[in-house]
């Protein structure tokens, strides 16, 4: 058993930023455990531009953004172990990991930060009927095959789902000479960023079909075509609208799911809405000393927000390690309503003195000309006009000291949309 003050699980942007800020808050006894053979997480396969606009005020590729954080970690001499998979975290903060060199590793940690990222929802998750042949990939797998391994998943492509990875892959496959025949989206709106719809779909004249879904996949051994159809208000396919599209490949971009197997093993309480842990303003979960940040907590669309959130988590973990007493869990619950699907964090301590608090949230539909409102008790402490809010773009609100105090005093904090 190895004693460690802070064990960080995952060496993606979340884990790296948490490590950096923990170090800068004075902690030296840190290890990052990463199962891949390089640091950087999912950014390594995102070779497109568009990272770091907020953090570095310039447009970087995924690997460039990651390498800045990797350098920060290396400069500080923070220990990390690659090719090391964490198998289990107990509620006593015993972390069991494995690699080829050390065999089984057991750490007894004072604090643990879960920064394990997310995974893609597979075909099975949405019950698409049809052949189970080769040629069906999740969009992220296809991205890795093309960008890292140098192979093409196929030549004629239909993409189901308009999540960001699907949109980006539509462009990427086109660049590589494939024909993207359609992007098919169940909802009447995209779950991706607007800038990706413009830059990846519209600029290439790829048909983007809203309120459509795949009802059948045909192929013997390999995909030969898909049948798509319109859906009604209840999202049920209208079979009379069915049409067949020839293709040899289907990419699925149908949602990302926080990877919380380890959180479960540690009995961390999870939110059924985000799929991530329920946390307080310190990013601490229901288990003392276990923190979460990045995509494992809730799926982000911009890495800049992952880094910010994770720096908070790193700092808080160090505060926790240095505490003399158990944290008091005397909270104001942060609620959401009126079109806001979730808010993170879910709890605010009643007694902690804070200068600012960032609330991150997603809405459940497209709303136009609305206001994003925060209530402390019955008082509107924050209000901002929004021309449009969509489920694909995370919204964020920063509360100042005065607003936080009001919320702590009134014992009620709620986020909502208010139509005009």
């Amino acid at each position: 058993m190895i004693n460690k003050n802070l064990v960080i699980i995952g060496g993606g942007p979340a884990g790296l930023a948490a490590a950096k800020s923990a170090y800068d808050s004075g902690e030296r006894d840190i290890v990052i455990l990463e199962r891949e053979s390089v640091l950087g997480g999912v950014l390594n396969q995102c070779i497109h531009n568009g990272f770091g606009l907020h953090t570095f005020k310039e447009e970087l590729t995924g690997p460039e953004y990651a390498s800045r954080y990797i350098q920060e970690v290396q400069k500080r001499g923070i220990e990390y172990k690659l090719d090391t998979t964490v198998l289990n975290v107990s509620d006593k903060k015993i972390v069991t990991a494995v690699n080829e060199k050390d065999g089984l590793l057991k750490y007894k940690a004072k604090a643990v930060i879960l920064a394990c990222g997310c995974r893609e929802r597979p075909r099975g998750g949405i019950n698409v009927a049809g052949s189970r042949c080769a040629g069906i990939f999740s969009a992220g797998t296809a991205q890795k095959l093309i960008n890292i391994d140098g192979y093409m998943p196929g030549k004629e492509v239909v993409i189901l789902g308009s999540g960001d990875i699907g949109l980006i892959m539509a462009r990427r496959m086109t660049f590589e000479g494939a024909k993207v025949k359609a992007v098919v989206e169940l909802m009447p709106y995209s779950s991706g960023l607007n800038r990706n719809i413009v830059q990846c779909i519209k600029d290439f004249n790829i048909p983007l079909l809203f309120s459509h879904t795949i009802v059948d996949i045909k192929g013997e051994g390999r995909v030969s075509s898909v049948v798509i159809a319109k859906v009604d208000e209840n999202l049920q396919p209208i079979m009379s609208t069915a049409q067949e599209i020839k293709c040899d490949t289907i990419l699925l971009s149908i949602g990302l799911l926080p990877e919380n197997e380890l959180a479960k093993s540690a009995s961390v309480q999870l939110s059924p809405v985000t799929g991530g842990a329920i946390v307080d303003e310190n990013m601490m979960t229901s288990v003392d000393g276990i923190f979460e940040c990045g995509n494992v907590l809730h799926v982000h669309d911009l890495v800049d927000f992952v880094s910010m959130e994770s720096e908070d988590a790193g700092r808080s973990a160090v505060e926790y390690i240095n505490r003399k007493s158990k944290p008091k869990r005397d909270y104001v619950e942060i609620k959401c309503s009126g079109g806001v699907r979730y808010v993170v964090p879910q709890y605010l301590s009643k007694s902690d003195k804070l200068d600012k608090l960032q609330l991150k949230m997603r809405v459940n539909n497209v709303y136009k000309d609305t206001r994003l409102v925060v209530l402390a008790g019955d008082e509107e402490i924050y209000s901002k006009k929004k021309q449009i809010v969509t489920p694909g773009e995370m919204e964020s609100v920063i509360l100042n000291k005065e607003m936080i105090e009001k919320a702590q005093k009134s014992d009620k904090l709620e986020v909502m949309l208010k139509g005009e």
Partner: protein
Amino acid sequence: MKKIIVIGGGVTGCSIARELVRYDTEVTVLERFNDVSSGTTKANSGIVHAGFDAKPGTLKAKFNMLGNAMFEKLSKELDFPFKRNGAFVLCFDKEDLPRLRELYDRGIKNGVEDMFLLTPEEVWDIEPNITHDIAGALYAKTSGIVSPYEMAIAYAENAAVNGCNFELEKKVVDIQKEGEGWKVICEDGSSYYGDMVINCAGVHADEINNLVCDKKLTIIPRKGEYMLYDKTCSFITSTTIFQMPSKMGKGILVAPTTHGNIITGPTAKDVQDKEDLDTTFEGLNEVYDKARKSVPSLNKKFVITQFSGIRAHCTEDDFVIGESDKKGFYNVAGIESPGLTSAPAIAVYVAEDIADKLDLKKKKGFVAKRKAIPHFAILPDREREKLIKENPLYGKVICRCEVVTEGEIVDAINRPIGAKTVDGVKRRTRAGMGRCQSGFCLERVMEILARELGVDFETIAKNESGKYIVYRKEK
């Protein structure tokens, strides 16, 4: 030495081959796909039936009962997953209770032990998630679950170790009389001589029979679709839950798998094409709705995959087992449910029968035991450490959802009748069978396959040879 040809590498063919290699004879299995267990054996309910279902006096009833009793010993000897978990047959309607009683009586006639008629309260005591809309249930404690493809692979590996010759990608297209025996001709032009030819071709057993025999067989392919749930749903039931067949049709089962998932299905629909394994919109909806009749708390959200299997329903309405009207041509046809349950008993019967007919003697040095690939995920820490010390590749996790290491995958490829495809690795190790369905490990499994087999990455197939997963990028 007498030569025996087994056509078909499903559980029927593999188990017969394994029982035959106990004798002094040369056994060859011809299988049309690139792996054993690629037919019906890979996609079914995996239930070791108690035996109350089959009509008394039929071969189905006989071999079901004999087979069921063999599983404890066999699963240890050949090291494949099996559990005797018990089964309910739910009766939803008071009016149907007499028919439940009939089922019970039929079980008694067949010799089923440990069978009870329970009240709803007694049922909920055992499985609280079962619907409250029941009038009673039959409870059969001897019902079990098995991993069907691992069972067939175990049989095949053990047969191979004992000298059986497995010829893969050999599709039999013709059989001609040659001397005392038969010349079995494959699509690629190759041919094999057998003093005895055993037809274990599953849904295609009628076609093989009809190449030779005067008495023709007809097999009607009948599709069954399934939905499989994530392991987090394992709390739902540890007992197999059947529904009583009613005017509404044959029921849908809800059962645990040996690996802790929940399986629901199958539908029953006659289809034209014997290879039509597509799932359908209607079929999946039917599975979902009917399964929720037994367990209302099942939630679509936790489904991780869907698949279907084809029953080899023979118009004879029973197993067809025995030497045909042509000497030296032996049928093991119409092996629909309870075919998996019956396989061990059928195999012993057929091997003894054929040994008798060909006057075969037992050979020395038969190795009955087979060791499975170690499953890192379920090993205690001490054994994990030992394994990694012997081979560090067991310290490298490739499939994160099911925690499958590189050591296991390499073992799966390099065993007798090793995996050649992504699906072959999957059935042997569970890599890619978890909740992300190979999203993360697909390309790493392909890399390992390419390296171990010494072939190019882009030639690795999902299952069917020649149907590639990726293409080389054109530069």
